[in-house]
Every structure is written in C-alpha cells, then in structure tokens.
C-alpha cells in the first residue's frame, strides 16, 4: 500500500472508479426500476410512469396471499435459524476444541454442501424427500434448507471459537463451574457475538435461498422468493406492477436483515472465515 501520484497510476485509479461507478449505477437503476414500477399507475414506453399509486401493494397482498406466504416464510426461516444454531454451534465447538482421528473427513463432510451448488444436491435430496413424503410440507423445506446452513454455521463458528483462549474455560473449571454452568456463564456470553453473526447470515441466506425451497416446497410451504419466481414465471397473467410490488416487499425483507447483519459483521470477514 504505497502511495503513488504518477499519471499512469491516477489514470488507472480513475478507470477503476469508473468501473465501480458503472456497476453501482446499473445496480441501483435496476432496483429503482422495480420500485418505480411498483408505484406506477401505467408505465409504457416513457421515462417515468403516467401517475403514482400504492394500490399494487394491496393488490399484490391479496392476489399472492402474501400474508400467508410471509407467515410461512418466517416460520421456515426462524426454524432453520434456530435448528442450524442448535446443531451447528455444538459441533463447531467440538471441532474447534478437539483433535480426533477422522476430523479431516468430517471437515470435508461439512465443506461439501457449501461447495456443491444447491441445485445439484437439491434434486436427489428432493427425490428422497418426496419418497418419504416429507417434501411439500414445511418440515421438508426446513430440512432441505438446513443442509447448507448447518455446515455454514459450523465453518463460521470454528475460527470464532478457536480465538477464545482455552485458559478461560480452564479457569472457570478450576473455580468450580460444571459443564452446564461453564456453558451458560462463560461460553454463551463469549460466543454470542459470533452466534448472532452466523445466525443473521443464515437468516439472510435462507430468505434468499431459491433452489432448495423451490425443489421441495408444496403449495402451502412456499416462501416469498419461490412465490416471486412463480409470479415472474407466469408474467402476463398478472399486472407487472403487482409483481414488482411483491418484489419490493421481498427486497425490503432481505435488505433489512442484511443491514442488521452488517452491523455485527464485516462482510470481508464472513468470507474469510467461510473460505476455510
């Protein structure tokens, strides 16, 4: 990181900024198109809509049964968050604190679901879930979503737990804390920031997780993103604005959680942790 002021360096920096600007501009313009359209009365062949209205939101709300969809979405998401924490954190703790034969193999097992994209393992998984009758129900969707989130929690938590000095736990034991008290009074408070960060990311991921939910959901277990997909897929049946209103609702749901998540974690660290 040496400061440099020569012309070629400045030109290069300017080109970089232009690239960043171009990307961000188009990204925002794309989002703005959706938002604008969702408030438009009629928008055909002009820069801006003919007039403004909020009626598409109520239309979308009733047309797509969004209250049901949102309820289902959050039930699924919170179940996934809770269960992946419950299964993932203890496993991460064991892996961070113990070295045992076969640990490498187990680490590989936890790495694979993150390396293999959801649609690849989703199809055999959905097949199995359909055979067992779990697919189409909420529990099937939750189970499918847990496949990538449990390893995600584990891989994010391992380095976090490793950085906590084992002497603190030793000290607590010396002073008479049993396993349960150790966990409640020492580990949980120390791990809380990490758990919170990991679970918030799981939450964002699960809201946005299309493929696994799509492959396993039935009519009563659709999440918002799957409902949105069907709406876009069947475009023409319904007004574009109504679909866009739904898209905005979806966007707000994910972005709110993203902003909350980023208050607790630096995005670079997440990936740095997840990259093994």
């Amino acid at each position: 990181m040496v400061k440099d002021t020569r012309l070629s360096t400045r030109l290069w920096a300017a080109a970089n900024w232009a690239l960043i600007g171009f990307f961000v501009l188009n990204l925002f313009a794309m989002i703005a198109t959706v938002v604008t359209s969702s408030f438009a009365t009629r928008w055909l062949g002009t820069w801006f809509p003919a007039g403004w209205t909020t009626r598409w939101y109520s239309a979308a709300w009733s047309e797509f049964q969004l209250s049901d969809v949102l309820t289902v979405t959050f039930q699924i998401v919170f179940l996934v968050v809770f269960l992946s924490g419950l299964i993932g954190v203890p496993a991460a703790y064991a892996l961070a604190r113990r070295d045992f034969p076969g640990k490498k193999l187990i680490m590989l097992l936890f790495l694979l679901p993150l390396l293999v994209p959801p649609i690849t393992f989703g199809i055999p998984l959905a097949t199995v879930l359909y055979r067992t009758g779990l697919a189409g129900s909420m529990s099937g969707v939750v189970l499918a979503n847990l496949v990538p989130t449990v390893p995600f929690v584990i891989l994010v938590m391992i380095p976090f737990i490793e950085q906590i000095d084992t002497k603190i736990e030793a000290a607590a034991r010396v002073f008479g804390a049993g396993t349960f008290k150790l966990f409640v009074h020492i580990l949980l408070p120390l791990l809380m920031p990490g758990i919170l960060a990991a679970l918030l990311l799981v939450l964002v991921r699960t809201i946005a997780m299309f493929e696994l939910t799509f492959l396993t959901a039935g009519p009563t277990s659709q999440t918002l993103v799957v409902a949105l997909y069907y709406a876009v897929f069947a475009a023409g049946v319904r007004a574009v604005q109504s679909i866009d209103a739904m898209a905005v609702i979806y966007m707000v749901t994910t972005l709110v959680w993203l902003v909350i998540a980023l208050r607790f974690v630096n995005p670079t660290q997440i990936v740095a942790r997840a990259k093994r």
Partner: protein
Amino acid sequence: MSAPATTTPAIPLGQRLAARGLDGLTLLVLPAVLFLLALFIYPFLYGLFLSFTPKAGGALANYQRFFSDSFLYGTIATTLWLALPVTIATLLLAIPIAFRVRLMRHQRLLTTILVIPITLGTVLVAEGLLNYLGPQGWFNRTLMTLGIISSPVKLLHNYWGVMLSLVITGFPFTFLLTLSYLTGVDPALEQAGATLGAGPWDRFRHILLPLLLPGLAITFCLSFVQAFSVFPSAVLLGAPAGPTRVISIAAYQAAFEEYDYSMASAVAMIMGVVQLVIVVAVLGARGLLYRGPAGGGKG
C-alpha cells in the same frame, strides 16, 4: 483392577479414548454429522443408485440417453459456454475493484453496496433486469438518448440477459473473496518491494499476483460452481428452450415435468461430475503455485 501385576495397570477405555481426543465433548459433533449423512450423503448415494435403475433399459440407459440426445448433452456445452465467461468476467471485474477498495479507509459502505446483489438473490435480479434492460427500460433509453445506439439492444430472453444477471449476482461473492485474500497479503511486503526499487507494476507482478493466485484459483472454482448451477435466471431471462437451456433446466424438467427421478438423478450426477472435473483441474494447477502464508515474516 483385574489386570495381572506383570503388566501396567489398564487405563480405562474412556480415558484412552479421551487421550485421542474422543470424549463427551467430541460427541457434540454427532448430531451435525448424522444430519448431513442422512440429508446430504444418503440422498446423493440414493441418487447415484437411482440413476442406474432407469424406468426402462439397462443400468446405463439414462446415461446412454443423455449422451445420444443432443437436446440433453448439448446442455453441457451451453452451461459451460455461460459459466466460464461469466466466471472470468466477474473475476476481471472483481480484481481491480478489490484492489481499489483495499486502499480505502472507509470500506464498509462501498462493500455493503457491492454485497447487495447477494441478498437480492437470483430471482429478484432477474425480475429487475426484465424491467431495466427491456426495450423500453431505462438502460436502452439512456443509450438511445445519448445517441450510442439507434434501436434498443436486445438483452433479454437470450444469452446476454442470463450472462449479465449471473455477473451481477456472482460479482459480490467473487469480490468479497478476492478482497479477503488481498487483505491477507502483508502490506509490508509491498513496501519492501518499493524500497528495493519495484514500481507499481513490478510490485503487482512479482509480489501481489503470485501471493494472490492460489486464492484466485479458489475464487474461480467457487464462482464457477455457482454460475454452473444457474437456474432461475436461465429460465426467466434467457431462452430456456434454446440458447440458454442449461443443464439444471434439463435436470429440473426430468424430475418435475416428466417425473422421471431416475433420469433427473442421472443428469444431476453428470452435472456434479462436470463441475468436479473443472474444479479439480483448476485446483491441480493451483498445486503448482506457492501456497504458504502471505505474511512477511514470523507471526
């Protein structure tokens, strides 16, 4: 102890296991392991088995059908023809931006903005691009107003729509990964290079790039795998019956339109193998590179 006096007293089994790292605490890993065995490994093996028990014909019938029907085997080339350019494009976009962001003091706002597409997800980006890139969308309007083009560019329901949406959704991840590898390189190394007479280009070529390449190889693999499994954008933004009929569409149709789970599993297995081949090739090349820590000394 019942052990004879001539041998050393037997250590209880539990203690012996504990000495090897297996005790009560280690068992905490079991629920997660069992869960993944049941819902990841088992379905995978089941799928593999299923793919060899086709609805009709011998064990290899599904695979024979896949590789004799150009409508099916063509999807591999279609997918690669999308995934490889997309991966390279996102990398080429992410590397200079990551370098720029690294020099900034307040990176947080910009990284947050650049990360947004991850959370929006593929479906929303598809819907947004349908509006934005359409013949009457702001993108074409702006270009026409600026006089760069005379009639709208067709970017939807073809290769380019899918390509663009994949770059947008794939960029944040590639960028974050590159940035995190880049921040792992000790800045003192660059300073040392400078005091030894290396200008910016030499510092990049001889110091940063060699230290970054192994990380970039990993980034390439992960981005590639994401792009390879493209599904919603290929359906919504592409031409799912033609130029962007990617392999995941073929798998989906087999499973949920023809209800031929056996064939669907076979396609999923082929998909996995193709990904694996590319990933292994890249990682193999990575094996030739320096892969130690990117720090400048002790600690």
